[in-house]
């Protein structure tokens, strides 16, 4: 047995005992633990945000504080009154009683872009459902995640949680991650990370809830309030320097409002690149051989990226905007970039704009999030029907809107399911209710029609559907 296997066995052994003990707790015990962990996390929101910022070099620490607030205060508010232990529903009419049971040990993959906040989020929903959790942090965020785990674990124990209910891989190891993923004592993988990692989770043989990449198109309709739309896009795309995967990637407008939108972005300190500048930015923003974003510009400011690309911009530039006339191969900036860079499409009419949104939606962001600014309900409905996105955010900053809690009543979560388009099992914002096995106790409620019907008639080949269904429903 190699070292990674042995380590996996030890961690899963401890987690399994924690899982067993967890089953003895009732809703009140569980809620007390969750509340204590929420409070500890919330009270360390600033320290951990600064740690994550310093360690990863990504984003804006003040925004990471807000992410920690979302992942503690808002996640807690979202789940605190949810029934997750024992009988959660009983319907006399149907005779069905639902009982919530924990899943067992959960393995949580944590991305570098939202490290401490995703740890908080996953710990809270796991504890709320009496599941022990093992954290695997991105190699560039191990220290801040380890400190987050330490704080949460201490608070959990103080409130009566079982030993080893929260563990973390303190030294990043691909081998150990793999061994845990495939371990037969593991119940579920909660994978928030790159496509490769999510694919590995789904291929492990254990159940997994993964997420897909985004490529969020933003359609600004003629009926939109343009200054409001632009202000909200900027608010979202600059939030933690664009590290949330639901952040806007492209702006799509019809040509008769294009100039007004461009002027509004310029007025609000965004910079439109010319063709030469786009060429300079492409190899800086994108790994041209792989076609994916360059890790060293992720979560950096627009000014930093412009400097790196040799483009002169004002220091207070909020977003670099690349007007493009194509999508996909040959247009590297049309894909997902988790940094303050947007592509911009001017389309000849409404149909052309929606078709552009479809192309962008299908360029690596299927099932994730799409955004529309409009005051025309018909267009909002049409856009929503046609996009393949788990979340359609309307007149809302996409980053903060998609994670729920601040701008809408979506479940608050940093794990955003993308459905089958993103190769995921759900389109939901993953929360506590995704982490329970629901048992259905069904009482005898005989189907009277069945018992009144002569079932021998099913064996008679001369009787067709019309005759049998009429007979079956007779006198009912």
């Amino acid at each position, binding site marked *: 047995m190699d070292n990674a296997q042995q380590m996996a066995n030890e961690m899963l052994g401890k987690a399994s005992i924690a899982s067993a003990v967890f089953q003895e707790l009732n809703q009140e015990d569980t809620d007390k633990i969750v509340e204590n962990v929420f409070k500890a996390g919330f009270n360390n929101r600033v320290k951990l945000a600064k740690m994550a910022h310093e360690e990863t070099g990504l984003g804006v620490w003040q925004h990471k504080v807000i992410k920690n607030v979302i992942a503690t205060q808002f996640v807690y508010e979202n789940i605190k009154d949810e029934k997750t232990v024992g009988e959660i529903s009983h319907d006399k009419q149907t005779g069905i009683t639902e009982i919530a049971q924990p899943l067992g040990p959960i393995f949580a993959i944590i991305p570098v872009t939202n490290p401490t906040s995703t740890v908080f989020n996953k710990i809270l929903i796991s504890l709320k459902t009496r599941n022990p959790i093992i954290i695997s942090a991105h190699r560039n965020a191990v220290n801040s995640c380890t400190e987050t785990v330490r704080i949460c674990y201490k608070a959990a124990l103080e409130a009566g949680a079982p030993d080893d209910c929260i563990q973390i891989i303190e030294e990043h190891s691909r081998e150990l991650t793999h061994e845990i993923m495939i371990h037969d004592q593991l119940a579920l993988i909660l994978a928030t990370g790159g496509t490769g990692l999510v694919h590995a989770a789904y291929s492990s043989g254990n159940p997994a809830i993964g997420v897909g990449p985004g490529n969020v198109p933003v359609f600004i309709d003629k009926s939109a309030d343009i200054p409001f739309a632009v202000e909200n896009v900027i608010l979202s795309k600059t939030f933690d320097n664009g590290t949330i995967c639901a952040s806007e990637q492209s702006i799509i407008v019809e040509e008769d409002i294009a100039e007004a939108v461009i002027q509004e972005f310029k007025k609000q300190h965004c910079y439109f690149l010319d063709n030469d500048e786009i060429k300079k930015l492409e190899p800086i923003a994108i790994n041209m051989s792989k076609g994916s974003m360059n890790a060293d510009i992720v979560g950096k400011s627009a000014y930093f990226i412009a400097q790196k690309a040799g483009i002169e911009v004002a220091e207070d530039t909020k977003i670099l905007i690349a007007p493009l006339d194509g999508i996909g191969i040959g247009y590297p900036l049309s894909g997902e970039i988790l940094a303050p860079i947007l592509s911009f499409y001017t389309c000849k009419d409404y149909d052309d704009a929606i*078709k552009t949104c479809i192309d962008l939606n299908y360029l690596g962001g299927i099932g994730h999030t799409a955004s529309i600014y409009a005051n025309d309900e018909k267009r909002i409905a049409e856009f929503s029907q046609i996009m393949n996105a788990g979340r359609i955010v309307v007149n809302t900053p996409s980053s903060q809107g998609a994670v729920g809690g601040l701008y809408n009543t979506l479940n608050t979560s940093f794990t955003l399911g993308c459905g089958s388009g993103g190769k995921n099992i759900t389109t939901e914002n993953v929360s506590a209710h995704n982490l329970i096995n629901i048992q259905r106790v069904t009482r005898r409620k005989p189907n009277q029609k069945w018992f009144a019907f002569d079932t021998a008639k099913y064996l008679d080949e001369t009787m067709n559907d019309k005759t049998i269904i009429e007979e079956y429903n007779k006198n009912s």
Partner: protein
Amino acid sequence: MIDFKYNITENFLNCKFKGRMGADNAEGLTKMLQDKIEEFDTDNLKINFDLKDVDYIASSFIRICVLTAKQLSEGNFSISNTNPMIKKVFKIAGLDEILKVS
């Protein structure tokens, strides 16, 4: 009845369709198209299906698109003026790039 018109300029055949491209007349349409295509040297022929006035396509019509494209040199078949829903149909079917759908 499928409403189908075409115009020819040099080696370019532009076919305009109207209404619902259902399964009912697929056979007739296939024959009409086939007869027309056979008048040309398919190596140099370019065909465009203009779907400006089409609001529904059945799988039989998608099949006609694919079969028509296969008879031509690579890149010589295109589909234009789709409405967003029909564009999405080709996108989901994974045919939007190969059939040059716009």
